[in-house]
């Protein structure tokens, strides 16, 4: 995409967190260093700047079918702390794909931080796929900090599927994801995290299953290497006849530390809640199998981790 507001580093960051070619096909809003720099709306998707706080409201008309909405954020200024509120209002029976993401490039010694608060209000029967990618780069010793908050409110018959990925370069992250589910709703979360060096990542899930036949499936796959530290906290409350499955699967290496704290609470006799958690190093037999196919131990490890986080 061509723009006077974006330089090469910006485009590189953008390409890490979203698909550049696709951006211009639907509605989008690009935010750089705390300000909106590019925007496009469509017949069905309107984007309005908030008046009271920094951020935008995104309105999707009812019955909108298969539109893409891109809202990437890039930060290239060291020392910047950016706080933004993005609210998505999804009309009845609309079906959209939302791609958010934040790329930080920090070449200096001051910290750069982005705290994005994303709230999703889905009307009856709406369907959303929400993809979020986090990426950090730069040679400075300044930290790259991302603290996303996601709140999901599902009205009867609606569903949201969220995929979040943070594979590289983020020094510190605290991710909070909250879901409030009414009748016949489904909330699926898949998270992939990889940390190394001295990085820290914490994930907190809080899901309230308030409606009959509501369901949630939370999957976290993570790899912690070096001296990095990860925490996984999930709290699921079954307040009606509902189903929940949460799964935390972590590979540790070197001196990394991973903590998983599952909490499931059934407040109704018809609530069916399952939690699985597994933390461990790469299974020796997996390495051996790949080595019998000719890979070195290091190559085998890479294949196993790449597959695990795919």
């Amino acid at each position: 995409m061509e723009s006077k507001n974006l330089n090469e580093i910006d485009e590189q960051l953008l390409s890490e967190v979203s698909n550049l070619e696709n951006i211009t096909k639907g509605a989008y809003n690009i935010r750089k260093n705390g300000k909106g720099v590019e925007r496009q709306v469509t017949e069905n998707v309107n984007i309005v700047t908030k008046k009271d706080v920094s951020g935008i409201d995104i309105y999707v008309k009812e019955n909108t079918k298969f539109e893409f909405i891109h809202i990437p954020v890039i930060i290239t200024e060291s020392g910047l702390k950016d706080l933004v509120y993005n609210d998505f209002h999804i009309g009845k029976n609309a079906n959209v794909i939302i791609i958010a993401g934040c790329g930080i490039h920090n070449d200096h010694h001051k910290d750069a931080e982005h705290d994005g608060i994303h709230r999703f209000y889905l009307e009856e029967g709406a369907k959303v796929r929400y993809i979020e990618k986090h990426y950090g780069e730069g040679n400075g010793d300044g930290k790259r900090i991302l603290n996303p908050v996601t709140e999901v409110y599902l009205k009867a018959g609606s569903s949201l599927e969220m995929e979040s990925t943070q594979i590289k370069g983020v020094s510190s992250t605290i991710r909070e994801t909250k879901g409030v589910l009414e009748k016949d709703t489904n909330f699926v979360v898949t998270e992939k995290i990889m940390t190394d060096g001295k990085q820290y990542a914490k994930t907190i899930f809080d899901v309230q299953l308030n409606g009959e036949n509501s369901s949630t499936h939370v999957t976290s796959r993570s790899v912690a290497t070096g001296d990095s530290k990860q925490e996984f906290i999930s709290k699921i409350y079954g307040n009606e006849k509902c189903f929940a499955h949460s799964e935390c699967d972590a590979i540790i290496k070197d001196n990394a530390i991973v903590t998983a704290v599952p909490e499931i609470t059934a407040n109704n006799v018809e609530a069916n809640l399952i939690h699985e958690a597994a933390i461990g190093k790469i299974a020796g037999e997996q390495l051996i199998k790949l080595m019998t196919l000719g890979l070195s131990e290091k190559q085998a490890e890479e294949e196993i981790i790449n597959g695990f986080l795919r």
Partner: protein
Amino acid sequence: MILELENICFERDNKKILNNINLQIDLGKFIAITGPNGSGKSTLVKMIMGIEKPDSGKIIFDGKDITNMEINERAKLGISFGFQQPVKFKGITVYDLLKISANKKITKKEACEALAKVGLCAKEYVDREVNGSLSGGELKRIEIATVALRQTKLTIFDEPEAGIDLWSFNNLIDVFQTMSEITKGTTIIISHQEKILEIADEIILMKSGKIKEIGTSEEILNKEIKNKGCCQKRECKI
């Protein structure tokens, strides 16, 4: 000679798991290893692949001393190994595994052909993850496909029949035979299957960590197995 084992010993928990094994195997042979559970068959072939290292003794492959070589170095020299219990992964697909096995870029079509050879309807499997959602027999066939793709001088299978229904197994025997025709290499199969023992050039019979007998299928089958009570129908007295 492609493989030579000299005085291989392996002891754990005061138990002689392999007790001074000496063995010489020629290129192009189809060898079956058989013997009771716990007699050391799997341990012996793991030594050849490098998955276990002997306490003492020497392993010569294709003229080179490989006793202290890592698994992947042996793999590159031309040894392949099919596990008794196939390994499961998370996220790695059948296609991924076959690509690694072939050690070159293979198309999905080629991967599918490799699967079809082991009797899997390829389209349904090629993109699936190699995980616990596959049945035991399916995993075993994929395991065999990964080994067959490598086409090495020495191919080892540890009980390939386990978990595979008898009808399909007869077709798999064709896979082993075609493979050894293509590679002109040596195949070593651990097996309890009469059919495999019958087609083997040589049978190695193991017992309590030792090679008890080596011979042609007629010799061993008649002398050691058929004449002993173990394979005959038990007579029931009411």
